[in-house]
């Protein structure tokens, strides 16, 4: 794939989360959809302004947990009944109550790993390069104390001049044009 060229988007910098949430809400009302907020800590109000509510992380957690439970059950049942049957104190070969703890641990192990790696994968990480890292003020602030709104160029409503004017009405600390 040839490297993408041109503008990635317009990045507005704000000093407070309130300004960011206000600008995001207004941008959404103005019809912008391809946009993203960047904050140094989770700002739930920003997610609401972006109308981003649902994540599939809990589903992955559930599926992982079920997979762990089934693995634990089948593994132990097969081993103790067919794979390597041992007579222990004349207990039945299929003594399922004794299998509960390894099943329980495997449920948690699989659920935890699928949650963690699922979250990373859904977020598209690891992604060591991103156009926003080209913006000089982004690296200085996004992970420390500044709040950013990026209106992306692939939005149908995006026009470099008009979008900039739109963002200026929220009096951001700066507006930077970000290249790919």
């Amino acid at each position: 794939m040839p490297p993408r060229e041109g503008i990635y988007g317009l990045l507005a910098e704000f000093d407070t989360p309130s300004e960011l949430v206000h600008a995001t809400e207004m941008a959404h009302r103005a019809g912008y959809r391809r946009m993203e907020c960047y904050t140094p800590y989770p700002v739930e109000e920003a997610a609401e302004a972006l109308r981003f509510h649902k994540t599939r992380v809990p589903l992955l957690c559930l599926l992982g947990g079920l997979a762990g439970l089934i693995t634990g059950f089948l593994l132990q049942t097969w081993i103790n009944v067919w794979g390597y049957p041992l007579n222990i104190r004349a207990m039945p070969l299929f003594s399922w109550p004794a299998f509960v703890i390894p099943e329980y641990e495997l449920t948690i192990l699989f659920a935890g790993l699928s949650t963690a790696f699922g979250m990373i994968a859904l977020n598209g990480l690891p992604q060591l390069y991103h156009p926003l890292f080209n913006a000089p003020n982004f690296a200085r602030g996004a992970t420390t104390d500044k709040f950013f709104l990026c209106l992306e160029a692939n939005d149908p409503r995006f026009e470099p001049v008009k979008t900039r004017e739109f963002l200026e009405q929220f009096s951001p600390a700066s507006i930077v044009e970000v290249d790919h």
Partner: protein
Amino acid sequence: MATKGPIPEIVDPMIDPRTGEYAVIAPGHTFKSVTQKIAGIVLTANTPWAWMGGLFLAATIAMGVVITVTWLLLKGVGIWGITIPGAWGFAIINFVWWIGIGHAGTLISAILLLFKQTWRNSINRFAEAMTIFAVVCAGMFPLLHIGRPWLGYWLLPYPNTMNVWPQFRSPLAWDVFAVSTYATISVVFWYIGMIPDFGTLRDRAKLPLAKYCYGMLSLGWRGSTRHWIRYESASLLLAGLSTPLVLSVHTTISFDFAVAAMAGWHTTIFPPYFVAGAVYSGFAMVLTLAIPIRKFYHLEDLVTLRHLDNMAKVMLATGSIVAYGYGMEIFMSWYSASHWEFFMMWNRMFGPMGWAYWVLILTNLAIPLTTLWSRKLRVNVVYLFCLSFVVNIGMWFERFVIVVTSLYRDYLPSSWGTYRATKWDYMLFIGTWGLFTTLFLLFARLAPMVPMSEIRMMLPETKVRPGGADAEVVVQEAL
């Protein structure tokens, strides 16, 4: 000139006037100041001399592990004081003790998160690190105790040419699953928690190598809101998974004892009593670590007296559960009307090793549970630091008493023996302290000790007012 009117009270700025409690975070901090403070510890070019000295000392002590394990691999477990009937000895005592210490880290990071105890934010990262390093120390002991550690992988179910599989009706096989899951999930939870902070370190690092390493570790984190929402969801789920996990781990370990038909072990109270004891010793260890760290790195603003006070309260609660456990053991040894149970308890208190029982009562119950009721002592840093050692000694003796006194005088007097640890037992145990401290010092230097993103969420600046910039003016006036 005599002053008239009420004498103005000297108000401690750390005390919240509305509640009378110490603040969780000192007033006057901003996003920038907390970030600078925490990131500065890691990114500074000047490594403190005291840190170097501490690392040298700790690593030297950790050599005890290397030497003992080498000798053990050459000679076998006979170099330890384990014999029949006292076959478990220091290896199992230390295993249970270390893994118990780890439990407080998970409790702080998971259970207190679910209960929305935001004060935990400042201490959860290094408590989690403590968990992982404690599990590293703990995991070594049963592996060495199996006699041929190089065959340790036989514990896992895997297809092999011998056609042999583990026996899943034994708690010892359950232990393998519990401890390995615990170690894995703790590491994952710890790392996931650090991703945004690694992003901050990447952006603030001056050194190209540091920028590169933290950049790789942060996976390219950029603080996108959609990422944050998934991240928060994953954190909450991991906390929800870790909570039953941490309770199950010490429960499973207590089954190693409770399932055996030994007087003093075969009791149903063991699981809750082991878990409470684990949390008790774990909080003591968090205090042991937190008090010097907040002093040395000047983190008094973030790890305040409120944290120390709260941790002391948790110790008081869990210590009381442990006290109940001891009381119930004594009661049941009488109420069971079992001759063996009764003798075991008599032997535990007044037998040849009775002194260990009284050391345990003194250090685990008598000293902490009488003094921790006093708020003055709970916020006395020096006292808490000393007390944390006392409790950890007490909890070690608890495991010693449980393991040794039940084993060395069992049902048949003809098979009675004694237990005496050898110099190798001591060397390995002390060596693990060095290993633990070494790992912890490296962590304190190389990773963010306090979660920056979570601290930022606790600041008053995070309040979002609808209406944007205009509303901000109103807020400032109101403050």
